[in-house]
């Protein structure tokens, strides 16, 4: 036996039957086999019989190989792809509600949002809500900068979605 390689973050895209219970098969597989899920996002595709799921996990090469095989073994999984094997784009959406009662808060939110190409989508008496998209790391950085001076009230993140660059694709 060779030593296990070190754990790496992987983005896995899955096309599966859009049927009740399909999602719990995927989630159940991860908990039953002790794999970790960093994020998971799912919605039906343009073909309503299919759902597309993006799952972010981490593990050694051996673990990721097992994860891919075990996912493939699920009857409801039609096709899957480890995006780490391709040049790919990863995006996540985040909604952040910020307390704007502090002096200069409005300008600060607007300024940071401009830099991160985020948008203010709701203006309340005491709050702004900002929509940001980007990679996981970019959103982390955005939160860090914004939260440095202002009080963050609420954060909603969609989890990562991914797609391969160029002509590589995951479809039927």
């Amino acid at each position, binding site marked *: 036996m060779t030593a296990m390689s070190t754990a790496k973050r992987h983005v896995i895209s899955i096309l599966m039957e859009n049927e009740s*219970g399909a999602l*719990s098969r995927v989630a159940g597989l991860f908990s039953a086999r002790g794999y970790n899920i960093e994020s998971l996002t799912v919605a039906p595709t343009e073909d309503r019989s299919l759902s597309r799921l993006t799952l972010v996990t981490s593990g050694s090469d051996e673990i990721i190989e097992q994860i891919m095989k075990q996912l493939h073994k699920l009857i409801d999984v039609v096709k899957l792809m480890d995006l780490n094997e391709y040049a790919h784009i990863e995006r996540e959406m985040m909604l952040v509600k910020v307390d704007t009662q502090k002096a200069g808060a409005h300008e600060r939110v607007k300024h940071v949002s401009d830099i991160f190409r985020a948008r203010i989508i709701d203006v309340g008496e005491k709050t702004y809500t900002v929509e940001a998209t980007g990679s996981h790391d970019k959103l982390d950085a955005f939160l860090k900068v914004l939260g440095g001076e202002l009080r963050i009230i609420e954060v909603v993140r969609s989890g990562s979605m991914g797609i391969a660059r160029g002509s590589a694709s995951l479809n039927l």
Partner: protein
Amino acid sequence: MELTGAEIFVECLKAEGVDTIFGYPGGAVLFIYDALYKAAEDINHILVRHEQGAVHAAEGYAKSTNRPGVVLVTSGPGATNAVTGIADAYMDSVPLVVFTGQVPRPLIGNDAFQEVDIVGISRPCVKHNFLVTDVRELATTIKKAFYIASTGRPGPVLVDIPKDITQMRCEFGYPDSIAIRSYNPTVKGNRRQIRRAIDLMLEAKQPMLYTGGGVILSGAAEALTSLTHRLGFPITNTLMGLGGYPATDPQFVGMLGMHGTFEANNAMHHSDLVIAIGARFDDRVTGNIEKFCPYAKVIHVDIDPASISKNVKVDVPIVGDVKGVLIDMLAELDERGVSPDPANTADWWQQINEWRKTDCLHYEQDDTSIRAQYVVEKLWEVTGGDAYVCSDVGQHQMWAAQFYRFDRPNRWINSGGLGTMGFGLPAAMGVQIAHPEDTVACITGDGSIQMCIQELGTCMQYQLPVKVISLNNGYLGMVRQWQEFFYQKRYAMSYMEALPDFVKLAEAYGHVGMRIEKPADVEGALREAMAMKNRLVFMDFITKREGNVYPMVPAGAGQNEMILV
């Protein structure tokens, strides 16, 4: 033609060629039972005494025939009682289709009487499962269930049918074939990998064939025997693989693993080429994985890609149906017109024969108390080595595996992966129903037999002449053995106080009971019992109290680090 859901259920079973189902009625499946009542000439329903027994019986039926076993139980407790058997079938890749009743659709999610989310409960231990939500999908779902259960790596498939669906009517048509876009098992082994495997075999100096349950499931015993003879290599079987290669053949070095032979485990450890066929490098085989086969390249043939490189890094992976791959390997040798040079492995065989001299399965049968090993050996002799042998779980199981030398596949029926006590007797019923004219023995212990002993009632109802071989040492023997070795003989709860009188118990059910206490009586009793062709005979052999299973690879040890006596 318009039929009710219940009638469709019956028509589907007929279309699948199902002749026998194992089950237990209840509220949610009453329409189905009513339809079965009318179809009694076509489908033989076996009424068990507990739903766990139904599933194990279906497993016995499936394991001895390689055809899917079929189970029908009601909702709620009927379904949960079946779960142990379903998990057992999942671990041992047994093709089963399990039908569970469900409360009517409008009540689902209402905590209704006898409602349980069996699709959710069984999800981690089925190959796939379905909840039927539309009567028009019932026939297709059943078709899919049989297809999934019996193709690729076989396994249990559960179909949950709400009661209202069994009453509704719709047009019936059974699909001739089915395609599932997300399910296409690879059957044909990759040609290039097969060539690479043959290259390695031709060069190997210390090769080992290590074969498992996949050989039995694939019906590949004959092909395996031909290939093994052609290669001239030593071969070992896993617990699940026994009978896949004739145990009386000189190339067979015995079972491997925790209670495998000294020669099999040492040969694996020192091998330079391990050829794994339909086996999955289970922890009971490998022992400490860090110390496993340190010198070997590994070829692995398996229909399940997820089994390859799961526990052990594989050099030549071959995904495919075992039988087809073995035939392709033979064809490749034919095409090249070669076989491995016996000179390559001459030293290796000499070494293996040295290891064999250890005689690791040796035991002494004195005249003080019956040795369990002796009973199994005598059973082998008396049945001409050709009985179907079912087993429960524990010491008796290991002794059965070590001492009943299986020469044919599908004869050894046991719970390997899950290790389910209570498996043996109901499994034996299923085997006996599939093979009414053959001898079916159930080797069990005083602990295991009590976990499904209620099935003696089923055996009486259907006149199943199973021969129960109880190896009674008054202990949960395997637990006691571990406590002796690793817990300084603190026998916590491993002592079966207040055992019933098994002879009277058997008689109470209408069977024949025998108690055998003297070594000299063993063979005679076996012969007497086997002569009672039409009766179930419960043979309670009172055996040595603190016997141990040897050899043993302790947990965490390497394969070559065995306790011999």
